[in-house]
């Protein structure tokens, strides 16, 4: 069973960001199933986690629903991430969620980036803001990003075409991820280390490797 997690940072109810997230989630589900794999799609709304995200910045640990959300992301085979455009970039709420993820959480994870705004003039936000962010996080960003301005939700079907293409690209990575050998090993997370601790002799060896530091 594959798991795709959709993260949406819309603030209003209903929100066009959530609308786009749902379109992408449904398309991704169809696309993975079309490849003969079973898939489960879960959606995380960041709005109800806003207080817990601010708390995490100050306390250093996730509480309640945020801890659950981070756990969902850690175990996801692929992500769909959708943000409204605020001041020519992703929203602060959206960024904060990725700020508090432990380093290495998204290593090698396929990600579909998407954004909404009132006007198509913001469409390069996908390539100027979201792609660099997820590149930094060592995620694998699919080639097609989906940007939807308000008037894209009209009837001509162009948005659905882009949604389906992006979803198909994500599905190709997600459905294939059980057999593919990752190009580089993912960074070790605290949870991995707790489950399988590095023996002390190895820690000692690692400590002394590298050039002298004095």
């Amino acid at each position, binding site marked *: 069973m594959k798991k795709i997690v959709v993260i949406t940072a819309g603030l209003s109810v209903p929100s066009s960001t959530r609308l786009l997230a749902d379109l992408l989630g449904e398309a991704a589900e169809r696309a993975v199933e079309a490849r003969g794999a079973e898939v489960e799609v879960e959606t995380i709304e960041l709005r109800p986690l806003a207080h817990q995200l601010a708390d995490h910045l*100050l*306390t250093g*640990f996730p509480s309640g629903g945020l801890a659950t959300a981070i756990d969902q992301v850690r175990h996801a085979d692929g992500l769909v991430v959708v943000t409204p455009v605020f001041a020519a970039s992703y929203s602060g709420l959206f960024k904060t969620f990725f700020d508090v993820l432990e380093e290495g959480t998204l290593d090698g994870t396929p990600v579909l980036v998407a954004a909404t705004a009132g006007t198509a003039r913001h469409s390069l936000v996908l390539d100027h803001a979201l792609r660099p962010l997820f590149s930094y996080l060592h995620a694998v960003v699919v080639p097609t990003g989906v940007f939807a301005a308000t008037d894209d939700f009209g009837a001509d079907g162009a948005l659905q075409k882009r949604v389906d293409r992006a979803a198909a690209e994500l599905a190709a990575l997600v459905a294939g991820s059980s057999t593919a050998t990752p190009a580089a090993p993912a960074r070790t997370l605290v949870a991995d280390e*707790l489950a399988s*601790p590095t023996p*002390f002799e190895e*820690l000692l060896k*690692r*400590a002394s490797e590298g050039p002298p530091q004095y």
Partner: protein
Amino acid sequence: MTSGCHVNYDGDKTTTKQTRGEWTMQIGIFTVGDVTTDPTTGRTPTEHERIKATVAIAKKAEEVGLDVFATGEHHNPPFIASAPTTTLAYIGAQTEKIILSTATTLITTTDPVLIAENYAKLQHLTDGRVDLMMGRGNTGPVYPWFGKDIRQGINLAIENYALLHRLWREDVVDWEGRFRTPLHGFTSTPRPLDGAPPFVWHGSIRSPEIAEQAAYYGDGFFHNHIFWPPSHTAQMVNLYRERYEHYGHGPADTAIVGLGGHVFMRKNSQDAINEFRPYFDNAPVYGHGPSLEDFMESTPLTVGSPQQVLERTLSFRDYAGHYQRQLFLLDHAGLPLKTVLEQLDLLGELLPELRKGFDEGRPAHVPEAPTHGSLVVAAGGAKDATVYAEADAVTGSSDR
């Protein structure tokens, strides 16, 4: 407990300042030495006031019957916690029984040679009432001030402690490592009191590597247990216990575990909440974040009546197992000295019930935390470890 006791090796008469008491659990306090504005008055103590207050708090801790006083180490404002052995020696000179410890000693940025010397000296001065807790420190700029790099934090902790461990156990050390200039034919002086190095705890909130390190050496593991949820503490303690057994030091439930704790008490629990709330809301680290109520629910923080503190504290065993040392944080966030001393009185009144509670259901094979006295006995008795040298070797004859 068996407290610090210098065993007299001079002849066959064995003297101990402390004999085994009625209880098994070490209960004490730890401080980070923060100089913080009291949010209720707007007043900030001077460094001098805070340093003297720290001494008063430690003396009061002994007076109310606590077993351990531990100080942190910081090298930047707003802290007065630099030079920890100076503070501990001064306190040691004015106390009789309390164990002097650290929370933590910065094993990353402090030269292990200086740690070996300073704490062995403290052992001699206080007749063995010393142990210490290793920590890495999470203040980025401190590392470069001491010529180190925070990205090497784990590696520094691993290698520096490996050297420190040898300096206390081998009279003459040859050493080449990555983080310190080599040592050839080096003897750290003074040698540990009675030939028994101080017991060491390793503290870490979220680095499994440090639990692994503590387990490898058969040292103690301490979890701060203040800032994070109990589930996280449980994971770290369980890992340490499993690995302690793996390395052949004994069954997992005999590993040496210490926990922090954070309490504020008044006879009436609502009074405690009302009085502590402004300190909580403005505290360093978590202030201006979660509500007091949320934080009490998600972390071990307990603000309430002594009975609530008793019940919450005794529940730590539910996820950490029977453990050896409980240290409380009482004196931070700008709480005035008078209030801290009142808190110590309340903790002192609670001690008999805490000790009784901790002993209930405790299997006989669960050990006490090692002390100087027990370590000397375990080593087969005290031996003077002085390394004598020729006078010329001391003064450096080649210069003349």
